[in-house]
């Protein structure tokens, strides 16, 4: 496929790898934020192309992984009602709540459906006026405008039976929280290219200035990631720290203005809890009061649900880059993709699941 295959080409990858080995002198710790990038790094064994001085740690950028347990329990509560069709992207269905997951609700007769786009849920609402259609609106800035658009479109069609259970999170406040922690060992970041496609990258400039770390907006293919690492290391070796853009074929500094305007209209920024990490100030969106008709938390009285994580799971340390999945005592034992204990084992973008799929053999020998 054009704009994908070229970035998986062995000659190109080797060329970047050579250059990276030439410029790297000192040891550096670099974090990729986005779960999509984690997946590429593990799947293509990117570490094999890095000089030994570079350590890659995996960040909290898998929305499936950081959606709090209470939110999953609220989803399960709503999905279990007889008058509801609950819709979601596929990877949320298997995330364990405190008792069940959404697939169990489906097995017990609940109407739970996987959709490709939130607009599919709006169409379902139009076709099923006697039912309440709820979409599980999880994701970062990449997905948020699609959810905002679904609300606008439902409003335009005059639908009163469509709502979103909103658990939207934002990347820059998470980077800020990571860097503010005393334990942080991250010296450079690869920022998530698709988040920046929407938001641009001006939000990272104050972070670079405050914390003295280079941030390089990076794409998702192996050559993109290696080039992003090369740009980060080149800055570090020269004692520079700037925001740079590796993914310039799609990311512009200002991002997509139309999508951003939509976000401002539909959402407001609030503090959000991240699974395994805790509450991060101003790190998420909620649906504005004027659209409360489309806010599932207001439509359905789910009240205050609170929940406790399994004591086995060290997802928080993994999502902040302090530990690798195989350092968890449950990894590959109590916790596998078939029976996940924690969220990073569920999504193919979660670090635990990526390690389990692609690295299990080398780790257990």
């Amino acid at each position, binding site marked *: *496929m*054009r*704009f*994908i295959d*070229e*970035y998986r080409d062995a*000659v*190109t990858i*080797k*060329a*970047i790898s*050579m*250059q990276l080995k*030439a*410029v790297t002198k000192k040891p550096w710790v670099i974090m990729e934020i*986005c*779960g*999509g990038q984690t997946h590429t790094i593990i799947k293509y064994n990117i570490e094999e192309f890095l000089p030994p001085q570079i350590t890659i740690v995996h960040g909290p*950028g*898998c*929305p*499936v992984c950081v959606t709090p347990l209470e939110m999953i329990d609220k989803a399960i509560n709503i999905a279990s009602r007889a008058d509801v069709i609950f819709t979601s*992207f596929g*990877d949320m269905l298997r995330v364990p709540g405190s008792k069940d997951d959404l697939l169990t609700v489906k097995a017990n007769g609940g109407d739970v459906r996987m959709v*490709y*786009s*939130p*607009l*599919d849920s709006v169409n379902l609402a139009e076709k099923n006026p006697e039912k309440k259609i709820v979409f599980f609106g*999880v*994701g*970062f800035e*990449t*997905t948020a*405008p*699609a959810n905002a*658009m679904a609300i*606008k*479109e439902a409003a*335009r069609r005059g639908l009163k039976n469509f709502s979103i259970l909103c658990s939207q999170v934002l990347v820059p406040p998470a980077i800020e929280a990571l860097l503010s922690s005393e334990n942080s060992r991250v010296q450079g970041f690869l920022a*998530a290219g*698709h*988040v920046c*496609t*929407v938001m641009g990258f001006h939000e990272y400039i104050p972070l670079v200035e405050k914390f003295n770390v280079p941030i390089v907006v990076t794409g*998702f293919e192996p*050559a993109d990631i290696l*080039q992003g690492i090369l740009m980060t290391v080149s800055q570090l070796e020269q004692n520079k720290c700037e925001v740079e853009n590796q993914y*310039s*074929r*799609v*990311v*512009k500094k200002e991002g*997509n203005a*139309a*999508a951003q305007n*939509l976000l401002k209209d539909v959402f407001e920024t609030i503090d959000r809890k991240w699974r395994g990490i805790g509450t991060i100030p101003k790190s998420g969106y909620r649906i504005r009061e004027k659209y409360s008709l489309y806010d599932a938390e207001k439509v359905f009285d789910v009240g205050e649900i609170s929940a406790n994580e399994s004591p086995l799971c060290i997802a928080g340390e993994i999502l902040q880059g302090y530990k690798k999945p195989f350092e968890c005592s449950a990894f590959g034992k109590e916790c596998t993709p078939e029976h996940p204990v924690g969220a990073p084992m569920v*999504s193919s*973008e979660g670090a635990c699941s990526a390690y389990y799929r692609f690295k299990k053999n080398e780790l257990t020998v």
Partner: protein
Amino acid sequence: MCLAIPGKIISIDNSNPELKMAKVDFAGVMKNVCIEWLPDVQTGEYVLVHVGFALNKIDVEDAEKTLADLRAMGDLPEVE
């Protein structure tokens, strides 16, 4: 979750003025995609698509230049 894939705009449908749609070709697989956020996109252009929405255009010239630069790195003598 933030997966987005490149596709080529085949035709544009303006029938809903608040939800501009397009037929997009992903290496032979056709899908209807909302292009509301890219007001000046044309047929034949490449876009990056996420959950049924085009997030931005792909700058073909920029992509080709970056690739050429990357490949050229392989021609450099290895620095000690």
